[in-house]
């Protein structure tokens, strides 16, 4: 639980809420075609997570947080650029909504989706 205390009381934000913001931001980023379930060993045939939040891990600390994203990227894009853009977009949207600094966004590219081969 992430939270701050105001003079009226305490505000807490569940990691799930933060994961929702992060996954929405990631899915709007160009090159990301899905979130991956981080537990590959589950043996799910389809790696694409049904609930996009399953591809997000939020670690909240006292005054900052770090986010791990498990994404699937479109084959044929420059993966480093896509990952960089995702990290920027997620940090920006989360910091804007929550108002707490995001100290790290780790992007794990779990798979590529091949729509077309060249």
């Amino acid at each position, binding site marked *: 639980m992430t939270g701050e205390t105001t003079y009226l009381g305490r505000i807490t934000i569940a990691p799930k809420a933060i994961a929702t913001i992060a996954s929405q931001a990631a899915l709007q980023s160009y090159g990301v*075609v899905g979130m991956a379930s981080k537990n590959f060993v589950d043996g799910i045939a389809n790696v694409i997570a049904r609930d996009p939040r399953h591809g997000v891990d939020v670690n909240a600390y006292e005054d900052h947080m770090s986010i791990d994203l498990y994404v699937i990227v479109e084959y044929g*894009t*420059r993966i480093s650029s896509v990952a*960089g853009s995702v990290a*920027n*977009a997620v940090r920006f949207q989360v910091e804007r909504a929550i108002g707490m600094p995001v100290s790290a966004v780790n992007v794990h590219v779990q798979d590529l989706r091949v729509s077309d081969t060249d």
Partner: protein
Amino acid sequence: MSDVIPQIDESTRQRLIGRYTTVDGNMLRRLTAAGLAWLRTNQQLVNSLNVFPVPDGDTGTNMVLTMQSAMDETSKETNRSIGQVAHSIAHGALMGARGNSGVILSQIWRGFSRMLDDLEMMDVESMAAALSEARETAYKGVVRPVEGTILTVTKDIADEAEKAVKNGTHSAYELLERIVVAADESVQRTPELLPVLKEAGVVDSGGMGLFLILEGMLRAVYSLPLDQPVIGVQPLSALNLDNASEAIEPGQDWEVVIDFHPEPALDIQDFYNHLETLGTSIQVGEGDGIMRMHIHVPDKTEYEPIEYVKTLGTITNVAIENLMAQMAEQSSKQALDGIQLETIQAGDIATVAVAPGIGIARVFASLGVSSIVEGGQTMNPSTQEILNAFENLPTDKVIILPNNKNVVLAAKQVIGLTVKQVAVIPSVSVPQGISALFAFNKEGDFNQTVEAMTAALDDVQCIEITTATRSVEIDGVQVQEGQIIALLNGRLAVSGDDIEQVAKDVLALAKAGEMELITFYYGADLNARHANEIADDIRQIYSDQEIEVVEGRQPHYQIIMSIE
């Protein structure tokens, strides 16, 4: 027809239609080079359209670098078939894709080239098919496409191409013309589709970049110049004359603004061309039958624009201002107005930073500094000035960042002159001061905060570039008076005659290739365009590093760089 298409007579048009019915690989290569050149010319325009404060670099710069990589790749290609050339462009764009817009651009090329695979030549049918495939490929790269972006523009031009071919367009030249018009209209529509653009009063930057690439291709067909930026008439309300006076350079002594009724109607291109012979910083606005022109001209020619405009219509109003006098007044006023300093409450820790320029002061303010003292290399603030900066703050815990080794001592003397608890972080450069502020927490424990900030000083390397005031030899580096020199962490490291070369040499010496972020504060003696050119050059070399350009406006030092 849209005003992006120049007026040409019918016989020239027919000749172009006949000459460019198809496009081969060589032609595509030439067109792409033209698109890149035109985009590069208007790069700053595209950059200025960025509305998202996401640190993703600038759209214009990212698209230029992506296209540059595409061009580099295809210039190695000797095959003349359109399929081969298109593939090498797509490959180069993929390898050099930078930022969001660059990745999308590379996908557009990827789709475009796929349809041309084994073709020698491209006719209108294959061109339309390639554009459709570009649209499909671009849209496949994202789950939730945002409309009102470069994606929408791609879709609109592909749709237009399909329509045109159905309607019997049979020349590639004609098709390109229609695509450029469609792209222009599509870009103008982006604010209707994406509210954030409308709020900011701009069109989409990526879409604009794509339009400029296509327009550059068309301009090449018309043999129009590619090295002069887009000109245009803005609505009067959009004419921002306050900002225009910010970038004043030598030879811009007078600002002349004239309102007039043109009679007969004005040929804007001719008007601009003539104004360009008179001066710089040209802006033209239009509204309610009145035209307003704004220009900066050198001394003794301040009446020439008036004489010229007299020949075009009736003048209703003229304003002439002496810019040099204005500038002198501004700099003597030490204008720190408009900077939002951190407000603090009793018990908080306040920071006081010494800043050598207004731009750097802004950076400090954005990082939570509560008070700024102006000063630096040749204008060391006195102990009293530093004391005055925080005596009235409502807290008794103060941290001072001197940001210059000559100021550290004066700052330390403050400690004995106040009852407040004061610590001096011995920052000897602006980058060190900024680095220390990242460890600052106004609600933190005083001693821990001081410790953390002091430890952060060494996280950053500092480069200062200036002009040598005397000839000297230090540490084996020979310097002639008037040469450009670079100091690395306070020690003379490189000298030379060319500022760009000096900047590159000292970055190599600092092993910038092993770092992550290079921040580039350009001083009052360097204009924004030159600074951006140097930064772009550095970007080419350090493509793995983030390069940020900040207007520091510090005196004496043309460039201060931090590397971390």
